[in-house]
């Protein structure tokens, strides 16, 4: 079984074309199934997540792409009557992060997440970004100030907010709030960052900002992004996975998926014939 999945990865890797031929793995899903009660939402998904690359998950509503994304930081643990089956190996540790003995808090310390709707906390801009550091017990003021500034710079928000770090986060615009949430996630130095349709609540201008940002962030952190918007997937990602009804239909480099997809279903979806 394991050999087979490894084999299917190598086929994908061989077909990648213009992207650098050897790229390390950050994580990989192996025969991952997921259940809400008796309903199976993911059906034996196998997929690599390449290190320092952006991987986009696309597919029609209800295809399981968000469910899949939320397996990576064990968000489903917060809901009763859910069950994982299979594994997500996280590298370099080579540990299955879905194993019961792995503490979900530890997982979330290393895998950050940005949500569909900006969800800043009812705190100041500074405290929002410092939140992750504070829950990890960081108390040193200058250390906190440094890390907050770095995170805000990385999220391209520093220029806009440096003069009012003490004002409430709710006073920011929607796009700024979303960049604040990205800064919040970046502040703790995650190895993998999950984006769940991060621009679906934003106007086109703010969307363009966030897309630029995601494109630049891949130098620092591996990114997995769910998007409804295929142009967005094409713009920001290096790899694209197409999912349908809980199954992974196709995974390849983004260029191939959009210009020469293997599967008829993928082609129908990206050309807008359904979904």
């Amino acid at each position: 079984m394991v050999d087979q999945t490894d084999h299917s990865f190598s086929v994908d890797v061989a077909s990648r074309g213009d992207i650098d031929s050897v790229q390390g793995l950050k994580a990989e899903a192996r025969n991952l199934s997921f259940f809400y009660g008796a309903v199976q939402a993911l059906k034996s998904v196998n997929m690599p997540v390449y290190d320092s690359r952006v991987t986009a998950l696309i597919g029609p509503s209800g295809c399981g792409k968000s469910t899949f994304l939320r397996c990576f930081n064990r968000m489903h643990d917060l809901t009763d009557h859910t069950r994982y089956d299979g594994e997500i190996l996280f590298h370099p540790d080579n540990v299955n992060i879905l194993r019961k003995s792995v503490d979900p808090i530890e997982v979330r310390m290393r895998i950050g997440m940005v949500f569909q709707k900006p969800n800043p906390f009812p705190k100041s801009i500074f405290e929002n970004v410092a939140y992750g550091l504070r829950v990890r017990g960081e108390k040193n003021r200058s250390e906190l100030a440094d890390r907050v500034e770095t995170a805000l710079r990385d999220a391209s928000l520093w220029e806009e907010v440096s003069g009012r770090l003490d004002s409430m986060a709710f006073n920011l615009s929607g796009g700024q709030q979303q960049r604040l949430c990205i800064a919040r996630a970046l502040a703790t130095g995650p190895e993998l960052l999950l984006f769940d349709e991060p621009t679906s609540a934003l106007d086109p201008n703010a969307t363009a900002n966030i897309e630029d940002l995601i494109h630049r962030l891949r130098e620092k952190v591996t990114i997995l992004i769910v998007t409804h918007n295929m142009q967005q997937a094409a713009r920001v990602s290096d790899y694209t996975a197409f999912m349908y009804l809980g199954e992974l239909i196709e995974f390849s480099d983004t260029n191939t998926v959009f210009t020469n997809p293997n599967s008829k279903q993928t082609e129908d979806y990206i050309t807008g014939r359904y979904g």
Partner: protein
Amino acid sequence: MIRENPSQSSVGSGSIDPGSRFAHSVGRHVGERIIEVLLFLAAFSAVAVTIAIVAILVFESTEFFKHVSLVDFLTDTQWTIMFADKHYGVLPLLAGTLVTTTVALMLAVPVGTVTAVYLSEFANPRVREVVKPTLELLAGIPTVVYGYFALLMVTPALQWFMPDLPGFNMLGPGLVIGVMIIPYVSSVAEDAMRSVPASMREGSYAMGATRMQTSLRVVVPAATSGIVAAYILGISRAFGETMVVAVAAGQQPNFTWDPREPGATITAFIVQVALGDLPHGSLEYQSIFAVGLVLVLMTLFFNVLGHLARKRFREAY
């Protein structure tokens, strides 16, 4: 324009063709008006009753203040209206009210808040389904029962630790009022916490926060306006509470800030006088309107405070 558009002319002219589809609108309009007036009267009746109560309080108090100066009323430290040597200082009653309310809040605020955090953030649904109705049952017990509970159970129990505690004191009733208002505090505070959007909790968990960190650092601050409203509701309830104090605190207007001493609150005094056989129009009779006015003003003050707090802390999720 040379030729008038026929459809425009029928709309533009003042009279409505009785044969047209517009004919019934007048009748419907009258119906709507009647309903609107009825609805307004229903809403206004509550306002009218409030205004009437305040008006009567003010009117009767004016009679009282014709005989007693406002300065004496506010500064005299004795309230001996039933005795030969009469003093009309509201301070003892005010102190009694504040002492019992403070004792009650010192119990109800921490217990109510912790209960709300537990029910909203930690309890599994099955536990919540049992605990919530049980708590709300506390609010349904008649207050006179609480009064005897304070007199016959709580005070004797306290006397185990404090042998010098008199049989009538403000500590016992204060604690019992605290128990009584826990369900008010916890249920309003819990509603406030539960209405914090799930996306905010998810944001916190996704940062690697524990359940406790999420509750205390995100959910409670986000629900501050509702939690403050819960406290204000608790204060109003404790303030207006009558029977517990009347039964168990001794009905002795006593200017003291020590909860171990007997005392009387504004409400306890009102019930004492209202039940006695005082002649209508006497000064003693009018005094209950004066202290009643004080009570209304203080409750109003706390309601305004609560309103301001809600506005100050309201978050736009």
